């Protein structure tokens, strides 16, 4: 029986996943200038049909981006090698902003579905209140 509360649970799982993604985006942006920082990403996976909460989404393992770290020339930097270079972070602000926008858009869509399920539930309960 697919009732509206499990529908709301699916929407809530979507919101939780997008929130986790948004948190990683903000961590990445906060560390955009940290030497040697590797961008963090998380993959989403659908919950398999054998579980109770089938059809909802969950986040997988957090992974580090293996993109090459840029060499930054700054001889005065404490971490600089003998040639005056140190490794920066591979965070690209533009990519992070785009990711954050997508997460926000999906979060709002989930919220909308949650609200609609709630209202449908309320209209059914309204039948009892007469």
């Amino acid at each position, binding site marked *: 029986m697919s009732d509206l509360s499990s529908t709301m649970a699916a929407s809530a799982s979507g919101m939780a996943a997008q929130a986790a993604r948004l948190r990683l985006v903000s961590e990445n942006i906060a560390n955009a200038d940290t030497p040697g920082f590797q961008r963090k990403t998380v993959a989403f*996976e659908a919950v398999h049909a054998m579980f109770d909460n089938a059809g909802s989404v969950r986040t997988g393992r957090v992974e580090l981006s293996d993109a090459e770290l840029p060499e930054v020339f700054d001889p005065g930097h404490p971490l600089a090698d003998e040639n005056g270079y140190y490794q920066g972070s591979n965070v690209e602000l533009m990519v992070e902003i785009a990711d954050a926008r997508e997460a926000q858009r999906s979060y709002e869509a989930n919220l909308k579905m949650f609200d609609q399920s709630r209202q449908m539930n309320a209209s059914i309960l309204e039948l009892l209140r007469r």
Partner: protein
Amino acid sequence: MIQNMTIFQMASGLASHATDRQALTAQNIANADTPGYKARDIVPFEQSYEASGSIAMQGTRAGHFGVARGGVGGEVFTVSPFGIESPNGNSVSLEAEMIRSAEIRQQHDLAVGIYQKSLTILRTSMGRK
């Protein structure tokens, strides 16, 4: 007694069809960014009603009423992508899902409205208000 009247059967069948469809739409939206996920939907209410072929309401599947159903009722199928698929193989389009959810809302409101009106008529016929 109420279940035996066609209008109530039809209205509650429509409402539960809308609920099942809402469940799938919510799952589609929750998985809007999941790699490889394909958007799903169930057959329209008219189709399953036509398929029942009689005045007796069949709901989204034979034996729908009075039987506890596992998962989502009705025939589930993968919808063809609205526009193009994402590079990661995901075919969910938030816009298409929004349209679908508006339809579901309408369908559900209609079902509840009919149910409520029919109850009022029944009450009136019994001389109560």
